[in-house]
């Protein structure tokens, strides 16, 4: 035995993967042939749109590069928006901070230390004005990430801004996420229910959708947040099934209100995930396109082909990104972005390599945009629609995922629909199962994560620039909100809040959007508006 151990490699042993399953547990065969799939496939742009919703897909128009951004005060966020637009982002994706997501102002005690950290702190109409300073709402499309009932306030702020800038509503292009469930599927059921009565928030979501549909023709009334669901650790099939079951509930809700499905269905879009199992993700997205088309046609009897076309925004999944060896995340995000491009999507947010540390720096934000630009302009994959169409493996997998998703959707339907099983805690149980399974998978090595349980660097010196907030950011925001409340004309505020209270208590069937917009105009803050409605329901929030 030599005293000095010799360094060798695993070549002679033969390096092998620990298993040959997809992330959802579907087996990958040794190879696929015509025997696995040999069917007719409709062209891109034809029902059921498996191959894409447009014949020319990216040839006609490249996907939108829509990076999420937002931090600190609206002024700071505005600067980053301008930077992103300058380096080549083609759509705005505005994320609010946790306090705003829960309908709280920055000066609420429990919210003070969280204000502005993970998104923009937005409490007042003037905040929206500051956010869009120097940016024309009719020249760029915007996605506003916020859920009901708070989305009513944000939408109202945006519409008031359009009014102030003299932009007619027909010219506004964009999306309000507006999904009461999935935005907070990351944290638990408890946190989604703790800040506002759930049923009322769903109802206000419908109010917003009903208000917008006839008035703002180019505005998406909903983004089903399949991404957040996937980030909890559930698999591709569950992502597809849960999100489709949820949108089915929403469509039913609007139809119950008397709306014709063809009037709003083409304005419902998704926000999906692109994970790291490349072929499975391509298959999943194609399967979701087909599920949507079939569901709209066969279940909801849509007549207009536009209603049957499934549109989605994509974010590359953050869950597989690691804190260890962060530059590896650039590779991961590239693979995920490629999967999204190959599948066909309307817009992409490529997650930054520093995701495990903080919000993106300008540097990492730019790299995300460049990743998409390189794939678009240099790799040539965007030249033909659905390049993987006809590939035995991908088609087989598309069929498989579609079938499993339909089965799971049936289970959910039988239990009363997604909103019901969500409230019952059934979804929570699936999520908890998935979480523990994920943790176990990493502990056991079944799920390989480079840098975490394989190819680990002993000395892991992480040398990247990390984003830092301005020192006094929170203090300034708190001061701003407190001053705002002191220095405005109090009478109109009181009246509009009283009206909200009365309507919520005594005439709950009223569409709340206009009364909320009135309150925003009267200079009520986000929390004041929400508190009026909370008090009318005797709903207490954590303090």
């Amino acid at each position, binding site marked *: 035995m030599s005293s000095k151990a010799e360094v060798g490699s695993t070549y002679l042993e033969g390096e092998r993967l620990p298993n040959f399953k997809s992330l959802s547990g579907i087996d990958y065969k040794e190879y696929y042939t015509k025997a696995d799939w040999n069917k007719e496939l409709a062209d891109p742009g034809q029902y059921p749109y498996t191959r894409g919703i447009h014949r020319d897909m990216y040839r006609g128009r490249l996907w939108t590069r829509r990076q999420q951004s937002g931090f600190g005060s609206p002024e700071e966020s505005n600067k980053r928006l301008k930077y992103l637009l300058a380096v080549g982002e083609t759509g705005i994706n505005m994320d609010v901070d946790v306090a705003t997501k829960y309908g709280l102002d920055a000066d609420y005690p429990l919210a003070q230390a969280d204000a502005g*950290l993970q998104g923009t702190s937005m409490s007042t109409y003037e905040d929206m004005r500051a956010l869009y300073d120097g940016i024309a709402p009719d020249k760029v499309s915007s996605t506003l990430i916020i859920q009901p009932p708070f989305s009513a306030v944000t939408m109202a702020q945006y519409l008031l801004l359009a009014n102030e800038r003299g932009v007619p509503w027909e010219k506004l292009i964009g999306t309000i996420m507006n999904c009461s469930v999935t935005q907070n599927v990351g944290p638990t059921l408890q946190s989604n229910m703790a800040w506002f009565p759930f049923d009322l928030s769903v109802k206000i979501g419908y109010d917003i959708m009903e208000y917008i549909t006839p008035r703002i023709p180019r505005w998406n009334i909903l983004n089903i947040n399949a991404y957040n669901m996937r980030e909890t650790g559930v698999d591709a099939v569950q992502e597809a099934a849960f999100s489709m079951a949820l949108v089915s509930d929403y469509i039913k809700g609007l139809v119950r209100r008397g709306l014709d499905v063809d009037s709003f269905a083409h304005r419902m879009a998704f926000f999906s995930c692109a994970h790291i199992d490349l072929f499975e993700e391509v298959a999943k997205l194609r399967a979701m396109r087909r599920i949507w088309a079939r569901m709209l046609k066969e279940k909801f009897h849509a007549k207009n082909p536009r209603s049957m076309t499934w549109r989605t925004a994509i974010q590359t999944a953050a869950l597989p990104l690691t804190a260890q060896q962060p530059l590896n995340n650039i590779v991961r995000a590239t693979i995920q972005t490629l999967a999204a491009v190959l599948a066909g999507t309307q817009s992409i947010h490529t997650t930054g390599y520093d995701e495990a540390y*903080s919000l993106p720096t300008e540097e990492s934000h730019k790299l995300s945009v460049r990743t998409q630009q390189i794939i678009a302009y240099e790799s040539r994959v965007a030249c033909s629609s659905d390049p993987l169409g006809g590939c035995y493996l991908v088609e087989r997998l598309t069929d498989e995922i579609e079938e499993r998703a339909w089965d799971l959707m049936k289970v959910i339907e039988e239990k009363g629909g997604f909103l019901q099983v969500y409230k019952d805690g059934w979804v929570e149980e699936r999520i908890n199962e998935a979480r523990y399974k994920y943790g176990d998978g990493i502990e056991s090595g079944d799920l390989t994560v480079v840098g975490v349980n394989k190819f680990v660097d002993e000395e892991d010196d992480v040398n990247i620039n990390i984003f830092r907030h301005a020192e006094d950011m929170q203090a300034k925001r708190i001061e701003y909100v407190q001053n705002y409340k002191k220095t405005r004309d109090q009478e109109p505020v009181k009246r509009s809040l009283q009206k909200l209270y009365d309507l919520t208590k005594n005439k709950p069937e009223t569409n709340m959007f206009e009364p909320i917009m009135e309150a925003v105009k009267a200079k009520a803050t986000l929390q004041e508006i929400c508190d009026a409605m909370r008090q009318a329901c005797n709903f207490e929030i954590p303090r």
Partner: protein
Amino acid sequence: MTMTKKKIILAKVGLDGHDNGIRIVSKWLMDGGYEVVYTGLYNTPERVLQIALEENADAIGVSFLGGEHVAYARRFVTLLKEKEMAHLKLIIGGVIPPVDVAELNRIGVHAVFTPGTRRDALLSKLKETVC
């Protein structure tokens, strides 16, 4: 004669609703023989300390995902001194950039756990710190 058990309060403070990690850690700690008082979401530091006092805890573990760890760590250390509870071990986990770990230790945090910490590593470091 029962052996003395170590009691640890696990909490999330502020608005962050991501309790995935802390739920998993509370299960690990239970498996490791600790008595874990799990207090869930939306706590203020004052409440966490109140709980630690009533439970006569040996340690407090808080998790952060949103970048608010330094501000809260300072608040905790100040409060622990004010309330004469500085003998409690303060442990912080979550999305903590490595460069902040030294700062946290300097402020007075006894142990910091960053993302991807494996169970055995966590339990052994905890044993060192608390026992």
